[in-house]
C-alpha cells in the first residue's frame, strides 16, 4: 500500500486511542476530586493529569490558575493544545479523510459521525455535570472505532497499520499513567492502606478498565505492586504493556520482506523484557526507571515504523 496511506491510517488510530486515554485520565481525576481530602489543593489533584499528557509546562505557560475548570478545558477542548481530546479527534478525522478510500465505508462514516457529534459538546461547558458524559462518549466512540475496523476491514496491510497505531499509543499511555501515579503515591515507600490511597489506586485501575479484573484475579486489597504487575506483565489484561506488545509483535510478523526487519527486532526486544521479566527484579531496579526506559524504547519503535514503512521511498 502507499506509504502515505499507511502513515495516515497509523496516525488516525493513534489519535483515537490518545483521545480515549485522555478521557480516561480526566474521568478518574474528576471522580477522585469528589473524594474528601483527596489532595491538598486543586493543583495537586490536577497536575498529574497534565503530567500524564506531558503537558505541565505548556499548561503553565497558557493559564495562570490551576483550577479544575481550566485544566479540564485545556485537556479536553483547547484547540491550541495539540494533545487535547479536541485536537486528537480532529487530527484523527483529518487523517481518515485523507485516506477515506482506504477505509471501509463504515469505518469512515463512523469517524465522520464522531466528528459531527463532537460539536454538541463544544457548545456546552463540560467542566461540571457533563464531564463524565463527555468522557463516556469519547470512550464509547473509541470502542466503536475499533469495533467497526475489526468488523468491516479487510485483513490487509491497512488493517495492520491501524492496529499498530492503536497498540503503540496505548502502551505509551498505560506506561505514563502508571509512572506518574506510582511516583506520586509512593514518595518514600511508606506504609499505605488509608482510604485515600485505596481510592487513588482504584482510580488508576478504573482508568485502564482494570478494577474488576484486579478483583477477579487477586480478590484482595489493592496493593500498588499488584497493580503494577497487572498493568505491566499480565498478558491477559488488554491495556497492559505485555498485552500491547503481544499484539504489536504479531502484527509486525504479518509484514513480509526486508522493511519489517528492524521494527520487528526492536519490538521483539521490548516484548522479551515483558514476556520473561519478573516483577521483583523490576522493582529492584526501580519501577520508575523501568517505565521511563519502556516509554523511550516504545518511542524508538514508533520512529522505526515511521522510517521503515511510512516515510519509505
Amino acid at each position, binding site marked *: 500500500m502507499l506509504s502515505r496511506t499507511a502513515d495516515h491510517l497509523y496516525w488516525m488510530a493513534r489519535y483515537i486511542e490518545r483521545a480515549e486515554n485522555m478521557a480516561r485520565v480526566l474521568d478518574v481525576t474528576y471522580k477522585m476530586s469528589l473524594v474528601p481530602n483527596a489532595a491538598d489543593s486543586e493543583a495537586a489533584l490536577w497536575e498529574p493529569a497534565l503530567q500524564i499528557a506531558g503537558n505541565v509546562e505548556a499548561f503553565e505557560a497558557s493559564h495562570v490558575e490551576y483550577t479544575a475548570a481550566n485544566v479540564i478545558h485545556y485537556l479536553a477542548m483547547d484547540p491550541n493544545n495539540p494533545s487535547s481530546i479536541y485536537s486528537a479527534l480532529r487530527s484523527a478525522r483529518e487523517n481518515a479523510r485523507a485516506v477515506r478510500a*482506504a477505509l471501509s465505508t463504515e469505518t469512515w462514516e463512523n469517524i*465522520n459521525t464522531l466528528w459531527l457529534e463532537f460539536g454538541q459538546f463544544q457548545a456546552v461547558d463540560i467542566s461540571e455535570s457533563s464531564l463524565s458524559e463527555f468522557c463516556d462518549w469519547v470512550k464509547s466512540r473509541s470502542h466503536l472505532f475499533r469495533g467497526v475496523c475489526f468488523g468491516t476491514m479487510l485483513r490487509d496491510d491497512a488493517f495492520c497499520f491501524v492496529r499498530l497505531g492503536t497498540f503503540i499509543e496505548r502502551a505509551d499511555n498505560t506506561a505514563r499513567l502508571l509512572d506518574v501515579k506510582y511516583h506520586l503515591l509512593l514518595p518514600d515507600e511508606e506504609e499505605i492502606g488509608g482510604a485515600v490511597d485505596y481510592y487513588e489506586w482504584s482510580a488508576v485501575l478504573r482508568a485502564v478498565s482494570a478494577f474488576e479484573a484486579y478483583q477477579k484475579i487477586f480478590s484482595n486489597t489493592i496493593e500498588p505492586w499488584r497493580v503494577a504487575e497487572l498493568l505491566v506483565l499480565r498478558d491477559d489484561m488488554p491495556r497492559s504493556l505485555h498485552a500491547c506488545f503481544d499484539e504489536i509483535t504479531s502484527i509486525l510478523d504479518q509484514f513480509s520482506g526486508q522493511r519489517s526487519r528492524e521494527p520487528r527486532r526492536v519490538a521483539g526486544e521490548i516484548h522479551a523484557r515483558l514476556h520473561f521479566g519478573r516483577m521483583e527484579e523490576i522493582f529492584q531496579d526501580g519501577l520508575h526507571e523501568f517505565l521511563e526506559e519502556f516509554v523511550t524504547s516504545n518511542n524508538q519503535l514508533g520512529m522505526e515504523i515511521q522510517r521503515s514503512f511510512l516515510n519509505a521511498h
Partner: protein
Amino acid sequence: MVFASSTDMDMASRIPFDEMHAHGDAVREIYRVYDAWLKDGSMQQLERKRQEAEVLFRRVGITFNVYGEASGNERLIPFDVIPRLLGAAEWQMLSRGVIQRVKALNMFLHDIYHGQEIIKAGIIPAGILTNAQYRPEMYGVDVPGGVYAHIAGVDLVRTGESQFYVLEDNLRTPSGVSYMLENRKMMMRLFPELFRRYSVAPVEHYPQVLMNNLRAVAPPGVQDPVVVLLTPGAYNSAYFEHAFLAQQMGVELVEGQDLFVRNNAVYMRTTEGPRRVDVIYRRIDDDYLDPLVFKPESMLGVPGLLSVYRNGGVTLANAVGTGVADDKATYVHVPDMIRFYLGEEPILSNVPTYQLSRTEDLKYVLDHLPELVVKEVQGSGGYGMLVGPTATKQEIEEFRLRILSAPGHYIAQPTLALSTCPTLVEQGIAPRHVDLRPFVLSGKTVTLVPGALCRVALKEGSLVVNSSQGGGTKDTWVLENA
C-alpha cells in the same frame, strides 16, 4: 452556465417546458405514477425526507471545502428529493446522440494530433492549432486504442418535448458522477416504495465499467495493469468524488508526491517499496501534471510524467490535450466532425451559435446584444460572459467594445428557455430550471450507464445550475419500460 429568458424568440410569452407538466396542467405520461404518489403524501413527509437526506449526506461526508475557509466549514451541495424522469425512448435517443458525439470527438482528437485531415479538408480552419488548449507536445503521440476522452460529461438542455441541445462537451476532468451514484443510493433509501412502482434502470455499475475501460487502455503488453487515481488532495472541492471512485474501483488514491519517475516508468511509493503504475486516472488539469513541461511551480504533479507518457510508458485518462476539443471555439464544428468522421447526421443538435469571426454573424450579434448570451472562447465558468437579457446598458456597451477589439475570441447564442422540473423549495413544490450531464465512457467501446447528473437552479427564475452559484442536484431516473 445556462441562461434563458422570457425574451427568447421562439418561446416568447410561453412558460418553459416542464418535465412533469409539459406546457400545461396535464401530467406527462411518465410522471403519472409519481404524481399520484405525491398527492397521497404530505409536504411535511417530503420535508422530513429532505432533512433526513441532509443528515445522511453529512455522515457520508459528501462535502466540499470552501477555499480559504477553516476545515470545519465543509459544505453540502443541496440535494432535491424530487427526481427527474426520462422515458426509455427519450433516453435511447439521448444516449445514441452522446455516444455518437463522443466517438467523433475522440476521432477528432486523434486527427488533430496526427494527420490533421479535417483541416486539410477545409472543414475546420487551421487557426485551431493556435488555440491555447492545443498541446503541441501531443503531436504524433499515439495513445492506446486512440482514446483521448475516456470520460466525457456532455451537458444537455431541453426546451421542449423533443427539443434537446448539447450545451457543452466536458472532455478534460469532468466531475459530478459521484453525485449521480450517491443520489440514487439516497433515493432508494428514502423512497423504496417508488422503486417498486417504477422500473428505474440501475446505475451502480458505473465504477465497474470505468475500471474495465481503464484496464483496457493500459500500455500495450501490460498483463495485469496497475491503475491509480491521481487527486490534487483532500482540500480539492471534488475530493469526495476522487476518494469515492478510487474506493469503488479498488485502486490507490494517489497524490503527486506519491508518484515518481525512474527509467521511463512511473512508480508509486508503497510500504513495500516502489511499485510500477500503468494507468493514471488523473483528476488534475493538464497545466499541473508535470512541472517540467507545464506550470513549473505546480506541486500537484509528477516531474517527468509527460516524458514517460509520450513514450507510451503510462496511460493518462483523460489524455493530455483534450481541451482543444471542448473549447467553445471548437464546439461549433462538432456537427461537422460527426459528418466528416462518421458519415452520419448528428442525432443531437448544438445550440445555434454565432461565430463572431464571421462578418455576418458579428453584425447580427452586435445588433441584438440585449437578447443574446455572448461567451468567450477558451474560457469557462462564466467570467468572460455577457448575458444580454439581465445585463445593464452600460455592461452591454462595455462588452461591445471588448467584442470589437477581438471578435474571434467570442461566440454568441440565443438565450434558451431551459426546461423546469418540480423541486422542493421553502414555499413548497415549484418549477426550477434543470440541465442534464450524462457521463460517456470510452475504452474498447463507447458506452454509458443509464443515468446522469441532473443539476437544478434552486433560485426562482435562475438559470444558473452551477454548484458554485447555488445550484443543487437531483436523481435522474431512466425508466426501463415507459
